[in-house]
């Protein structure tokens, strides 16, 4: 009984220690925030080459609604529907998200909303994955990319 208590206490201490010590992922590296150029002193001469290559302008999408393929992730299937009008992505809706467990639902729904916002803002499918929902994000963006390919 004494040995057991000792073993349990030891294990509890070790578990608590290594769970605390283990480095946790910081939030996924975000894109550098766009700097408001009006607040910066602008050089009087035009710079011919920017320090970082500016992203190419988003492609022009034809008007229509396309449903992307079902993409398999470790937690379940993801499928999105995307609508484009006047050359722009107007709306992205997740038709299917991982829902095997309530935790999946809890995590994937907000992640899908965040991705949809980001995609509409940047007009592309190569946005950052949402930290904490990496697998769902990857499936989501892959389904979206296939759909966008058919719209461009």
């Amino acid at each position: 009984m004494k040995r057991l208590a000792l073993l349990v206490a030891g294990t509890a201490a070790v578990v608590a220690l290594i769970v605390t010590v283990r480095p946790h992922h910081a939030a996924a590296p975000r894109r550098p925030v766009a700097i408001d150029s009006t607040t910066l002193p602008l050089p009087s001469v035009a710079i011919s080459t920017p320090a970082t290559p500016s992203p190419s302008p988003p492609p022009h999408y034809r008007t229509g609604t396309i449903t992307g393929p079902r993409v398999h992730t470790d937690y379940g299937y993801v499928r999105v529907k995307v609508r484009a009008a006047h050359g722009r992505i107007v709306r992205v809706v997740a038709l299917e998200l991982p829902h095997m467990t309530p935790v999946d639902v809890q995590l994937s729904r907000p992640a899908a909303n965040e991705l949809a916002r980001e995609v509409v803002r940047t007009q592309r499918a190569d946005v950052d994955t949402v930290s904490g929902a990496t697998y769902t994000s990857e499936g989501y963006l892959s389904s979206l990319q296939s759909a966008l390919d058919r719209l461009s």
Partner: protein
Amino acid sequence: MYALLGGIVVVVIWWRGAAPAVGPGASLMDAGRLVGLLAGYVALVQVLLRARLSALRQSMGMRRINSWHRLLGGYLVVLVMSHAALITAGYAAQTHVSLLHQFGALFTDYPWVWASIVGAGLLVVVGLTSMRALRRRLGYKMWHGLHVFVYVALVLAFFHQTVLGEHFLHNTVLRWVWTASFIGVGVLVVGSRYWRPVTLFVRHFRTEAFEL
């Protein structure tokens, strides 16, 4: 000593095998996963200690085997209970529901968790009946009969590990290594405890018959 080495391997698997949990309740979930993996490992050691392996008996001796089995038996029950408590608490924090509600959800909504809860219940019964006072009152036959249910408990608990276990979900190799060690230990114990006595009996019977 070798048992401790295995424990370190389990910690390494836990550390390297899956990304840490995120969000509220993350540390509870991480601790729960680690304790769960540890419980699976200790369960295998327990079965091995009782597999009547001559190599083990020669190197450790029956007295030490028995004493270790007794210690680790209590330890296993504590680990399994802690695993259940930590995971329930972690998930409840993540989904913002009460502990009781979360436990119910785990039981009904998650694949194979109900079976592992039944298995844990069996394990607790076996653990309680092995406490000296109760064991003496039950008698050897009853106690031993109940102990056989540990095998049922381990089989019931196995499936939630490979179907839901964060460390096995994303890692096929790890999943197969884990499965193979469970099957391996199972084959070993059935072979040495049940198959071998049968073959010995048959051989003995044949020799006797021949001599008659």
